[in-house]
């Protein structure tokens, strides 16, 4: 079990801490776990379609972005946020600073950086862009240019 602390101001609900279970634990025992108000960690290879009809039972969903080149989390975030209108928190965990802009626009509502970014100087990272060329789950206040 992992404890996630409120990582940034992006969080719009005020979780002090929430118990997280793995995807397989949830699939095996969702009826019991749903009564405990747990959150769910989804790995890139987990079949997100399996929880499509259970979203109301899940307090928070954490998507794992550890693999820098593994883009499945962005589609998972899109499904939760835009397609299925999940109303709970979608946390991008093990996030990389260079990829935050993609994660946020794909629909995550908060994030927790990988430990290795603990001492990172934010000025060394990009502020992102002033416009975007496509509609996405979250246009993030950017001017649409398409």
């Amino acid at each position, binding site marked *: 079990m992992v404890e996630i602390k409120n990582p940034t101001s992006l969080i719009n609900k005020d979780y002090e801490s929430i118990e997280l279970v793995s995807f397989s634990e949830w699939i095996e025992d969702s009826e019991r776990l749903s009564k405990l108000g747990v959150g769910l960690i989804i790995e890139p290879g987990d079949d997100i379609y399996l929880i499509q009809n259970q979203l109301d039972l899940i307090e928070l969903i954490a998507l794992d972005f550890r693999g*820098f080149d593994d883009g499945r989390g962005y*589609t998972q975030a*899109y499904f939760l946020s835009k397609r299925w209108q999940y109303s709970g928190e979608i946390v991008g965990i093990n996030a990389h600073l260079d990829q935050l802009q*993609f994660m946020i626009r794909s629909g995550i509502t908060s994030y927790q950086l990988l430990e290795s970014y603990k001492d990172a100087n934010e000025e060394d990272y990009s502020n992102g862009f002033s416009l*975007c060329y496509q509609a996405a789950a979250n246009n993030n206040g950017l001017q649409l240019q398409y």
Partner: protein
Amino acid sequence: MYKYSEKDTQFLVERVDQFEKQLNRHLSGELDEDKFRSLRLRNGLYMELHAHMLRIAIPYGILSSNQLRALADVADNYDRGFGHFTTRQNIQFNWIQLPEIANLLRDLTDVGLHAIQTSGKATRNITADPLSGLTEGEIEDARPYCELIRRWFNLHPEFSWLPGKFKIAINGARLDETALRIHDLGLRLVKNTKGELGFSVYVGGGLGAAAMVGPETASFVPVEDILSYLESAMRIYNLKGRRDHQKKLRIKFLVRELGAAEFSRLVDEDWQQTKDDPELKLNLKELHNLKEDFALPIEPIDLKGFKDQVDFNYSIWKKNNVRAHKVNGYSIVNISLTKLGAAPGDATSEQMRILANLADQYSSSEIRTTKRQTIVFPFVRRDQVFDLWKSLEKYDLASPHQGTLAQIVACPGRDYCDLAKAVSIPIATRVQERFNDMNKLLDIGDLNINISGCENSCAHHHIADIGLLGMQKNGEEYYQITLAGETLHETNIGKKLGPSVSSESIVDAVENIVNVYIDNRKNQERFTDVFKRIGIEPFKEKVYG
């Protein structure tokens, strides 16, 4: 042609600022090699055998003369005075120093050029027929659609970290100059029985070790729904594509494993959920604006009574290099950069500036690049073609090779690329030396020879009449021969002739193949038609017999 707006330029500047920060972090040791590799590739930057290679996008192969001059400046200021036009209509510079990249890219933003997504596991430059908008009988000019789709997948948040690279080609003509069915995704503009415009979609084509012609996944997607369909195709690929095996990353492996019918079904199922989303509809107002941006810059002119110059060399060049234009009084001129011993597609900074100046004088300041690594002047007055030829000849750019086998397509090969197994350019040179008689070349006619130095197939050898693939055998360079690949009328992957042939014997083998073709063809029969009629055996007998 389309010009970047101030906002577009601002976006390019922001992208350079972002990449500069990433570069600085890498140079200071803060950003590790793996992550930097992923980020630099998305900015077109490769680490090659001797230096860094930077690939600049030429969207759907269209350049203004000012852009070409800016590329010439890059060649002089940051490289060794030349650039290399690629088979995907882009340009590469092979001798770039890492600390200078940001300044180089910043210089290019002034003319709306960039290196975004010219490499890496994302949507690459979209390619199109270099004659888009210029010829009679076209179904629709593909360029406005290329631009809209290019924009949409520019740093797309959901699809920027795909399992593998994703190449799209769009064709609006009846013949396929784009080779769309060997792309990860090919779009063919079509009209349905009601006369409405849409796209036929082909997914999972590709070259390389498992060459495959992309199956059709949708026969008609209405124009306004194309973005949502493309997103669905990429979404299925992003979720289900192979990420566990370096050689199976491309979408063709997913399509092959699932079967085309199942892949199409999954895409369609997803698409049904999004096709009515107003945010994903193609912006028809912007499409209209783009059609105006792409309107031809010429009006018909009456050249009744005009008689072209009579000159033997000029007429040979004209026969091979000049095509009819749909606008009265104009021609399309193809310029070959092929030089003996130089890499096909190489152009010096001086040549780039000469071409830019000539384009200003003769072609409404527009230049196009082709997958055969040539340059097209799209708007030349018929009564100025001779003057243009004289100028090209003066600068040694009037090679009449276009449409002959001497117009060889070759990748940089082992001379420059650390992936290559064998050399490409020296083989091209030897073939050109063997066939150096213009009369013979004209007699042979339009015959493609493409040479790739490894299975990555950068020179598209699978779709050439004669394809050569470099490989290593007991430490020696050998070449596998494939015959009768084509894409223009239908798409066929070339058939393997037999055992690979040594470097020493490969030019003899090519000559033997050409001779079998000449001896067997009837009238103006194309190589692929002769091959279909007589089969592979006569070629085998001559090469191995």
